[in-house]
């Protein structure tokens, strides 16, 4: 029996997923610093829901539970979804979203390796469509909030929707910069005057840009570890920057500058952690460029013209649909063959 090669040198799926989780850690801590410790609760909730629902589904599907749980892919999905949700999201929102991501978007399609759509983004999109108000109501960063909630207060809010007495909900929430920009532009304000509002930081959202920077750090680590290829983030950020630059150049009063687009919303998280999901993405180098470029274009269009403040989730899902087509048409030239 010929079973060569006898040697391998590859990180296991678990190691790859573990490194992705590791790369998210700086972002999570930055998040906690900006929005409070509630994020740890959200992440724990999402992780628990993901593991339990994955185990139940594996049991129902009569698959081995231990190897599939220990591949950590469910945990990655849970963390990404948790980070995409608004801080202080009620517990049931986290549970419903994670459940949907794992059960419907992943296991019902055949589990690891078979899901055509990014599970975290499916979960996010379902929540965004079902509960638009909760999903777009972000608490203000602690540095801007009139009242700062302690960890226990956040815990109570997440599980009981209870705020400390004499604190009103408006006191802790504010619009996100992307949302604010959109509504203010509709009121015929100019970008330069809008961005003078306190919620704007140097590049993107005040506080939010810090989290984004931490994501960038984690993303660079993934690149360095060769967990992700350079194609996806480069093409995504490049096209997003180019597109926003073109619009900005035409009418700087009406369109935000490229740096703002790169550093706000989920741009960086998307570039390094979401579109880099290999299962729902394309496999060819050229395909990755097209895919990422497509996500960037759709994201920008939704941000500027669409009904939602950020468009990453929908852009990723739409491009997921195109993956088989992209792969089929971007096959590299095989050695010894002419270019098709």
């Amino acid at each position: 029996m010929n079973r060569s090669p006898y040697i391998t040198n590859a990180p296991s799926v678990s190691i790859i997923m573990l490194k992705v989780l590791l790369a998210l850690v700086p972002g999570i801590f930055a998040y906690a610093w900006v929005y409070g410790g509630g994020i740890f609760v959200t992440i724990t909730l999402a992780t628990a829901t993901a593991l339990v629902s994955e185990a139940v589904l594996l049991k129902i599907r009569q698959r081995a539970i231990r190897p599939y749980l220990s591949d950590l892919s469910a945990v990655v999905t849970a963390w990404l979804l948790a980070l995409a949700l608004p801080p202080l999201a009620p517990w049931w929102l986290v549970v419903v979203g994670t459940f949907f991501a794992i059960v419907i978007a992943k296991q019902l399609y055949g589990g690891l390796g078979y899901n055509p759509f990014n599970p975290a983004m499916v979960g996010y999109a379902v929540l965004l469509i079902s509960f638009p108000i909760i999903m777009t109501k972000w608490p203000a960063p602690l540095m801007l909030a009139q009242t700062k909630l302690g960890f226990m207060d956040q815990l109570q809010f997440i599980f009981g929707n209870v705020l400390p007495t004499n604190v009103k909900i408006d006191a802790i929430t504010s619009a996100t910069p992307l949302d604010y920009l959109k509504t203010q532009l509709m009121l015929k304000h100019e970008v330069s005057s809008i961005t003078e509002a306190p919620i704007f930081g140097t590049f993107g959202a005040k506080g939010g840009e810090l989290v984004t920077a931490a994501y960038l750090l984690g993303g660079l680590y993934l690149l360095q570890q060769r967990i992700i290829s350079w194609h996806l983030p480069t093409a995504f950020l490049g096209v997003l920057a180019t597109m926003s630059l073109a619009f900005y150049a035409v009418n700087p009063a009406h369109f935000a500058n490229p740096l703002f687009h790169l550093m706000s919303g989920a741009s960086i998280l998307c570039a390094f952690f979401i579109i880099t999901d290999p299962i729902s993405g394309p496999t060819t180098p050229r395909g990755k460029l097209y895919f990422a470029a497509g996500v960037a274009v759709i994201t920008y269009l939704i941000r500027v013209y669409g009904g939602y403040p950020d468009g990453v989730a929908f852009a990723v899902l739409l491009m997921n649909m195109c993956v088989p087509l992209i792969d089929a048409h971007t096959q590299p030239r095989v050695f010894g063959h002419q270019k098709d």
Partner: protein
Amino acid sequence: MNAIIQFATKLIRGQAAEAATAGIHKFNGGVHPDGHKQESTTHPIAKLAIPEKLVLPLRQHVGYIPKIKVQVGDHVLKGQMLAEAEGTVSAAIHAPTSGTITAIREEIIPHPSGLPDMCITLTPDGKDTWGSLRPVDWRNTDKKELVASLRASGIVGLGGATFPTHIKVRADGKSHVHTLVINAAECEPYITCDDMLMRERADEIVNGIEIVKFLLGAENCIVGIEDNKPEAIVAMTKACKALVDTSVKVVPTLYPSGDARRLIHLVSGIEIPHDKRSTDVGVQVFNVATVLAIYRYFAFGEPAVGRIVTMTGSVNQPQNFEVLFGTPLQSLIDAAGGTKAGTSHFIMGGPMMGFDLPTINIPITKAANCIIAATPDLFAPPPPAMPCIRCARCADACPVNLQPQELYWFSKSDNFEKARDYKLFDCIECGCCSYVCPSNIPLVQYYRYAKSEIIAADKAQEAADLARERNEFRLARIEREKLERAQKHAERAASGKAEAGKVDAVQTEETKINSTQAEAAKPTAAPVADDAKKAAIAAAVERAKALKATAAKTETTPTGTKEILPKATSAANKPADDEQAKKDKQALIAAAIERAKAQKLAAAHTGLAPKNVENISPALQAEISEIDAIREKAKQAVETKDSD
């Protein structure tokens, strides 16, 4: 930044990034497995003592098995031919030492299947007496003679492919080989036999290069060596100075740079089209050890009787040995100081492309470049495979630039047509994809499975085609025989009548023939001409029509049908007189046959009659030629299969 952009554009264009290093043309992917080459290079090549028994499998090369020339009990001398090359692609087997043939029977051979095959057993007499050695003055001998002589040398490609060498130096008259590439990359881990050979016998190798260059008529020679063999590089560079237009090119250590097509690309930049051979673009590749064997054969008359084998892995003293073919593996293991504790089995070849030996009781053959004593520690059994996560690491590692993850998907789902579309047959089974797979999927096994399934399906299809062809031919023959009987009948009936142009009987007969046909077509049966001339013309027209229809219907017009045409024309042109009654008669009979044929054809269009009535021909010769044609076709089909 510029570098990044350049890199990106190259990838966008779907090309592998080309290295800036001078003269080396990189290929996509490749992997860097641990070399493990130091272990077996600490000691020089040692000559292994003649064992007590040599078992020589007849199948040690690619191609037909050779014909045995000896019998049990024969005493043979060293170098004496035991089996002669038979057919084009075949290689002879020689006695590795002097002794007695003690058995010719099936024994286990070193093959992944573990199945037994015919072997000649030689019991050495210990004297190691050479038979008559006939060196060849190759410089002053006709090339054709040299190639013929090489056919009797038993030399095959010693890099592991074991393709008979005389085929590779044979001029095919189509292409001129301008460059000889010597494959000394030895990219597989653990294997060091070529490395040691170059360190110790560089001069002999270069002598061999000179001969092969001469045989091929090649102007240049490039020796490709991986940069992890500095001693070999020094030795070969020095030795190559003796030859003009022969140079050593150092290639980066990257598995599988020793693959012939990859190596040619590395050293020359020539990318051999997938459907062509290297000689089509003027390049031929030889392994260093093969070249040395050619030198020994021409300079000293020594045929292929042994080779250098690396014995490494879990043995006490890993080393390279010069081993006689047929030597039991156990002798080699003993010479290497025996196995260490925990040795579970043996691998022949390297860890990337080798295979498990079925048992320890196997002989060393021409293909055995390396034997690795394996332990579970050295080669851990792979963990259970996980689903593919489409990470495309395999695609990044594939030296052929395939999409292994797609091929896996198609192979797994038995979607073989798609697998073929995605160039499955360009896969060289190097194992790079499995090497880097995080999910531990045995990718290469999936490809081997898919390839064998496709080949089997193709073979079955071919056999079915052949069977159908035979059946159609049989039906045609039955039909023709029936008509021939009718013809004879008609002739007999006609000869019974008056000879002076009275054709009524024939006409009656003809009508009879027509009525015997199930779908007797009235329009042709009714107007039987009184005039023989008219009949002949009508027949000719009919024939022409039938022929046209036949030609339009079938791609391969049988030779018999073609022959009718000139005859028919001549029959129509010749005026039939009363004096030429005989000719008239013949024409009429022919007309009857043709009409029947035309009817059949018409019926065939409506799906009522058997197919292939177009084969009907009165000429017996046509039948013979058809049979010959089919036999020839069958033979060719078998031959092409075999030579593959």
